[in-house]
């Protein structure tokens, strides 16, 4: 096996490791683009992870498992949406509470699931496939298109979301809601409806992200299986400057960093010495990068790259 094959294999894993991040990031973008900072990504991912696995085990039906995962994330998002939209609760506190709730919920449901393995047919139908033609592209083909359909759907979803945001009227209306809900309402947009729909859709994405771990990547249930990936996704939303295409890059890049973390724990030979980089250092990398990006976007002041203007603030139409 040549070094090129090794790199190929490594990057293939990076895409897999980036997939939950990408789902989570897209979920975060959906929510933040309507002006709602949802720190509950980690919680929704865990809810999705455990429900997906549970339904997969019970029914042996991969489609139902994936659907259950998305719906579980969506229920988490619904709790968040009701509190922050209808009752105008504090978004940060609600998001944090959702994460704590999701963690507890997943541990509760998953208590009897450790050690249980996923039915063969579910595993098989979610295993990596060769996409005709595309997987034949030299180098890139195997990395991106010799993957589980589950991974691929994240990639497709990101592209679709980009088109949705920038080319369709729904996307325009949605951006308007996130920037200035009172302007949106004055333009005849139902801001509350847009917020609910997109926050719930975001929750669905997060649920899918979590279940990728339990259905494809691991595939087992372990307590707290997401291990902070939801938080990286929250950071990635900023890293990607709320752009789904940049989110693809960001998620795979951080997936690669995580992959690198596993490799580096065993040490790499440099000038005859076996240098061991502690995994903790690599775990820090996403956050350090995010801080750097935050500094950068505050410095360059390009208005288009800033957070949606209304992010984090409740909206009440009859506010005086």
């Amino acid at each position, binding site marked *: 096996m040549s070094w090129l094959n090794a790199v190929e294999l490594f990057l293939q894993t990076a895409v897999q490791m980036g997939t939950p991040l990408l789902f989570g990031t897209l979920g975060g973008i959906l929510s933040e683009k309507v002006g709602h900072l949802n720190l509950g990504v980690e919680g929704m991912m865990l809810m999705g992870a455990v429900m997906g696995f549970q339904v997969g085990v019970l029914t042996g039906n991969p489609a139902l498992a994936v659907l259950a995962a998305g719906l579980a994330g969506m229920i988490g998002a619904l709790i968040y949406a009701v509190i922050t939209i209808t009752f105008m609760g504090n978004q940060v506190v609600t998001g944090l509470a959702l994460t704590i709730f999701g963690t507890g919920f997943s541990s509760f449901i998953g208590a009897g699931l450790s050690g249980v393995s996923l039915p063969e047919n579910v595993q098989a139908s979610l295993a990596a496939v060769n996409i005709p033609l595309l997987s034949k592209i030299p180098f890139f083909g195997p990395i991106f298109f010799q993957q589980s359909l589950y991974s691929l759907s994240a990639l497709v979803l990101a592209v679709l979301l980009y088109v949705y945001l920038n080319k369709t009227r729904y996307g325009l*209306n949605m951006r308007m809601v996130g920037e200035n809900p009172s302007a949106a309402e004055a333009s005849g947009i139902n801001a509350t409806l847009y917020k609910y729909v997109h926050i719930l859709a975001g929750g669905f994405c997060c649920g899918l992200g979590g279940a990728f771990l339990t259905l494809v990547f691991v595939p087992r249930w372990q307590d707290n299986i997401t291990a902070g990936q939801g938080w990286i996704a929250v950071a990635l939303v900023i890293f990607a400057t709320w752009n789904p295409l940049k989110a693809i890059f960001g998620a795979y890049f951080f997936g690669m960093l995580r992959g690198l973390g596993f490799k580096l724990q065993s040490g790499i030979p440099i000038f005859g010495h076996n240098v061991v980089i502690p995994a903790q250092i690599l775990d820090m990398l996403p956050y350090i990068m995010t801080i750097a990006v935050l500094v950068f976007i505050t410095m360059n002041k390009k208005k288009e790259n800033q957070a949606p203007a209304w992010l984090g603030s409740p909206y009440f139409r009859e506010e005086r």
Partner: protein
Amino acid sequence: MEKEVFIKLENISKTFGPVKANRNINLELRKGEIHALLGENGSGKSTLMNILSGIYSPDGGSIMLDGKQVAFDSPKEAIEAGIGMVHQHFKLVDVLSAQENIIAGQCKGVFINKAKMTESILTICKKYGLTVNPNKKIYNMSVSEKQTVEIIKVLYRGAKVLILDEPTAVLTPQETRVLFEIMRNMKREGCAVVIITHKMNEVMEISDRVTVLRKGESIATIDTSSATPEQLTELMVGKAIDLDLERVQVDPALVKEVLKVENLTVLNGERREAVSNVSFTLSGGEILGVAGIADSGQKELCEAITGMMKIKSGKVVFKGENIVGLSPRDIIKRGVSLSFVPEDRLGMGLVAGMNIIDNVLLKSYQNMPGLFVDRKEGRKKAEEIVQRFDISTPGTNQIVKRLSGGNIQKVLLGREIDLEPELLITAYPVRGLDIGASYNIYDVLNQQKQKGVAVLFIGEDLDVLLGLCDRLMVMHNGKIMDIVDPKKITKDEVGMLMVGRRPEGGELYYD
């Protein structure tokens, strides 16, 4: 000829907590008329129009449209009924282009057809005589351009009723004339145009009929042609008011130079020159007015003099001492006082969530001895200010943000004047105030002037600046265009200077 009635509001009521904003208001709009809604601040004009445009839902009363009763649960429904409103604070998204702001919420189909949208926007522009660059981002636009976008937004939705909330507050005289032309075009197209204002000359110039509101009630609706400004003012305020501004005479002994600004240059947050090479002097017993379109460096000039903003170069000499580099606190101690009323009224100077006493104490507590704050003295002072400036509040314990706009401004100005400054800088002190309250404030400024205080008055209303000030400084883009004699210059000429155009002959108006 009697025009057809289009909209009829009957017995509209709306309360916000303890405040009755609208009480049984009746209003009738006809097709092809310009209808002025005249009233003091807090008289319920904006509330009423927000009800008509579906933003607030009324507590009582009915809206009749073409003879049929309607109820709007959201702005969307009002828009569909053909009612559009241009709000005082524009409802636009900065990072989107004019076109995106205009079409949002309105296009059919899934994908946006940009070319077709641009075309339909330009068609509307042509029909009503408007100009706009559809692809320009809002954050690159001037205030009047933004207003144009708002108007097109309403027209694009096929509005047959256009409501303009204080549209001329931010415009130069030339821009106002263009706006009035657009309004007349709309009238010719059969639309009903409502203009909310408290400027009497505009009511007389543009409207066909005028409805006067006072304290949430509709007082009268009259044909403008049969009304006089005095009569309307009396209806609006409830008593006769002298509308003449007085340029009071002061004891010449008091007139000596207090402030001298030399070649002042200030950079703003984005490191651009917000004030560039500005020089002027100001004497005690004098009101120096500053005119200029929004963001021409007025705010930065105020903040530079009071030490809140770093000065790049130049001198600020106060009573012979260069105060550049001193902390704001030291500058206050020397007798310089700033009351800046920002657009949202609460951004600077007062803490919205604190009560009147604490806000009054904010500046004077530093002069108190010891560790603890003496609230008794603060209460006394607050009560004095409340009485002296006739602030309507349930008590000095009232949280400032619960007061009406005019009263908030009085608290701010009252506190500053209470400190007995030698230099009083006041920016937009009458922003959004009603006539009565405005004239109160002009009187206060004149009193200060007579006491020998040097007053720097940054204002918006050119009529007031020309009537009240001893000299008028016109700023454009951070530079002083000219310092003119208000007795010799016309409003139009000031308007030209404000947009950076100098009349033939250069410094013709320099005194």
